[in-house]
C-alpha cells in the first residue's frame, strides 16, 4: 500500500528523471509549484460553490443549481464573469498602488504553501524555521490590505482598510501564541518534525495528536478563532461589512483585480487551515492504526475539508461582531488565555516525565484542563460584562 501513499512522490521523480541532470532542480521545483497551484486552484473553485450550497442548505434553500449538474459549473461561470467585467480604476486613485495591492496580497500567500507537509515526505521545502516562515508570510498581507484601502482614495475603503489592519494585527498575536505550545512540546519549528512528534498511538487506540491534550484542545480552539479573524471571515468580516461600509477595502476594485482579492482571501483560508491540520490534527497521520492502509495525503485532505466545512458552518451561524467587541475579544480574552495555555503545556510536559501513581494520566489531564477552564470562564464572564455596560452615544456638538 505504500506505493499508493507515495504515488505523487514517485510521479515527481519520474518526471524529473526525464530531464537532463543540470535542469533537474529547476524542473522539480517547477513541478511542485504546478502541483500545488492546480490542487489549490481547483480547491478554490470547489470551495466557492460548496460554500454557497452549504450556506443555502443551512438556511433551508438549495443554493446555486442552475449552471451545470447541481451547480458544479458555477465557479466557471463566476470566473468568466469576473474576467470579462470591466476593470474600473478610479481617476483620483494612484494607479501604481491600486495595481500592486492584489499582487502583494496573493503572491505571499502562495509562498506559504511551500512549508506545509501534505503527506509523507510531500513537503515542498523543509525549512527548519518553517512555522516562523509561515507567520512572516502571513504578516505581509496586512500591508497589501492597507495598500488596497489607501489606493482607492475614498473614505469607505480607507475605513475598511483601517479596520482590517487593526483586526489582523490584534489577531496575529493569539494566532502565534496558540502555536507556541505546539513548538514547545515538539521541540522544533520545522513542520515536518511537528507532524513527526504527533505520530504513534497511545495504548493502540488514541492517536498522539496535539488536539487530544487539554492544552492542545484549548490552543486549537483559539487558533481557529484567530484564523477566522486573520482571514476576515464570518463573525469577523468587519473589513468588508457589506451593510456598514460597502465592500471595505474592496470597494474600488472590479473585474480581475476583485477576483484576485477573492482568490487571496480563500488561499489565506486554505493556508491557515492546512497549518491548523499540521499543528493540531496530526498532519497526515491516520486516526487509528487499523486505518493506516489509506494514503497519508488522503488523511490530510479529509481533515482539511472537515475544517473547511467547520469554517463554513460557523459562517452560516454567527452574526458579525462589533468593532470593539472584536478587539476586546482578542486582547482581553484570547491573549491572556494563550499565555495561560503556555503554563498548562509546561505542566503537561513536566508531569509527563514523573509517573507518581497509576492513575496519573487522568489526573494529569484534569490538572491541565483545570488550569485553563476556570480562568477561561472567569475571563469569559468579564467579557460578557464588557458588553453589558450601556453604550454612551456622543451626539455631534
Amino acid at each position, binding site marked *: 500500500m505504500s506505493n499508493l501513499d507515495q504515488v505523487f512522490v514517485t510521479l515527481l521523480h519520474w518526471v524529473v528523471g526525464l530531464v537532463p541532470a543540470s535542469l533537474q532542480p529547476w524542473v522539480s521545483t517547477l513541478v511542485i509549484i504546478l502541483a500545488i497551484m492546480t490542487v489549490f486552484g481547483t480547491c478554490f473553485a470547489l470551495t466557492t460553490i460548496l460554500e454557497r450550497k452549504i450556506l443555502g442548505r443551512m438556511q433551508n434553500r438549495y443554493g446555486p443549481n442552475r449552471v451545470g449538474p447541481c451547480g458544479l459549473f458555477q465557479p466557471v461561470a463566476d470566473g468568466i464573469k469576473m474576467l470579462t467585467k470591466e476593470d474600473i480604476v478610479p481617476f483620483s486613485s*494612484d494607479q501604481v*498602488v491600486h495595481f500592486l495591492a492584489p499582487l502583494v496580497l496573493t503572491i505571499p500567500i502562495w509562498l506559504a504553501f511551500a512549508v506545509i507537509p501534505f503527506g509523507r515526505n510531500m513537503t515542498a521545502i523543509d*525549512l527548519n524555521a518553517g512555522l*516562523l516562515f509561515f507567520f*512572516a508570510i502571513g*504578516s*505581509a498581507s496586512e500591508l497589501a490590505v492597507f495598500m488596497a484601502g489607501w489606493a482607492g482614495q475614498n473614505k469607505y475603503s480607507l475605513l475598511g482598510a483601517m479596520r482590517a489592519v487593526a483586526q489582523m494585527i490584534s489577531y496575529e498575536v493569539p494566532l502565534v501564541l496558540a502555536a507556541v505550545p505546539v513548538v514547545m512540546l515538539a521541540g522544533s519549528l520545522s513542520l515536518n518534525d511537528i507532524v513527526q512528534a504527533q505520530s504513534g498511538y497511545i495504548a493502540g487506540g488514541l492517536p498522539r495528536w496535539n488536539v487530544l491534550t487539554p492544552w492542545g484542545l484549548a490552543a486549537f480552539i483559539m487558533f481557529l478563532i484567530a484564523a477566522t479573524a486573520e482571514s476576515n471571515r464570518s463573525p469577523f468580516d468587519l473589513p468588508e461589512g457589506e451593510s456598514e461600509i460597502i465592500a471595505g477595502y474592496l470597494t474600488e476594485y472590479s473585474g480581475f483585480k476583485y477576483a484576485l482579492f477573492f482568490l487571496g482571501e480563500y488561499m489565506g483560508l486554505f493556508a491557515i487551515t492546512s497549518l491548523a491540520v499540521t499543528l493540531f490534527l496530526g498532519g497526515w497521520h491516520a486516526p487509528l492504526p487499523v486505518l493506516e492502509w489509506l494514503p497519508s495525503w488522503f488523511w490530510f485532505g479529509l481533515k482539511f475539508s472537515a475544517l473547511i466545512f467547520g469554517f463554513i458552518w460557523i459562517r452560516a451561524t454567527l452574526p458579525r461582531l462589533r468593532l470593539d467587541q472584536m478587539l476586546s475579544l482578542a486582547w482581553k480574552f484570547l491573549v491572556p488565555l494563550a499565555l495561560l495555555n503556555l503554563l498548562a503545556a509546561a505542566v503537561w510536559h513536566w508531569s509527563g516525565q514523573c509517573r507518581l501513581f497509576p492513575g496519573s494520566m487522568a489526573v494529569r489531564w484534569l490538572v491541565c484542563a483545570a488550569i485553563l477552564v476556570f480562568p477561561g470562564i472567569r475571563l469569559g464572564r468579564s467579557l460578557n460584562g464588557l458588553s453589558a455596560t450601556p453604550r454612551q452615544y456622543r451626539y455631534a456638538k
Partner: protein
Amino acid sequence: MPSDITFYLLAALTLAGAVAAMSLRNIVHCVLCAAGAFAGLAGIYLQLNAEFVGVAQLLVYVGAVAILLVFTILLTHGADVKLGSALISSGWKTGLAISALVLVCLVVPVLTSPGLRHEAASGVVAPMMQKIGEQLMGQCVLPLETTGLLLTAALLGAVVIAMNDKTAAGPKTGVPPNHEAGKEPGLR
C-alpha cells in the same frame, strides 16, 4: 552561478527600494518602497543561509514597522503634502557632499583591504534553529531578558506618548486640524 544572479537581483531590488524611499514625493509611496527594500534585504539574509534572521526581518520590518509608518502618516495627515513645499531642506548641497563622503570612506577600505577578498563562503552551516535557541537561552540569556524588558517599556512608552491626552487639554484637542497651507494654528 544561479546564486550570483539572485544576489545581484536582490541587491538591485533593495537599493532601488531604498533610493526610491528617500526620493519620492508622495510619502505613502516612500513607505511602500522602503517595505520593498526591507523585503529585498530579507531575501539576501535567506540567501546567506541566515534563515532565522531573514524570516525575523520579514516579520518585524515588512509586517510591523511598515504598518507602523503607514499609521503614523495617516494620523499626522502627512499624506496630503502641500504641493508647494520643497522636497529637500535648503542646505542640500552640503548634505549631499557629506553623504558622498560617508559612502567613499566606507567603500574604499572594503575594496582595498586584502582580508575581505576570500571567495568561497565557509561550508554550509548545519540547521541552526536548535543552536540559536541554545545560544539565546544559554550564552545570551541576559540580553534576551533585557530586550524583553526594553520592548515592554517601549510598548508602554509609545502608547503613553501617542495617547490622545483628553484629560489634560479637554476634549477639544480631538478636533481634526485645519488644513489651510501655511496658516500657523495657535500653539496650544
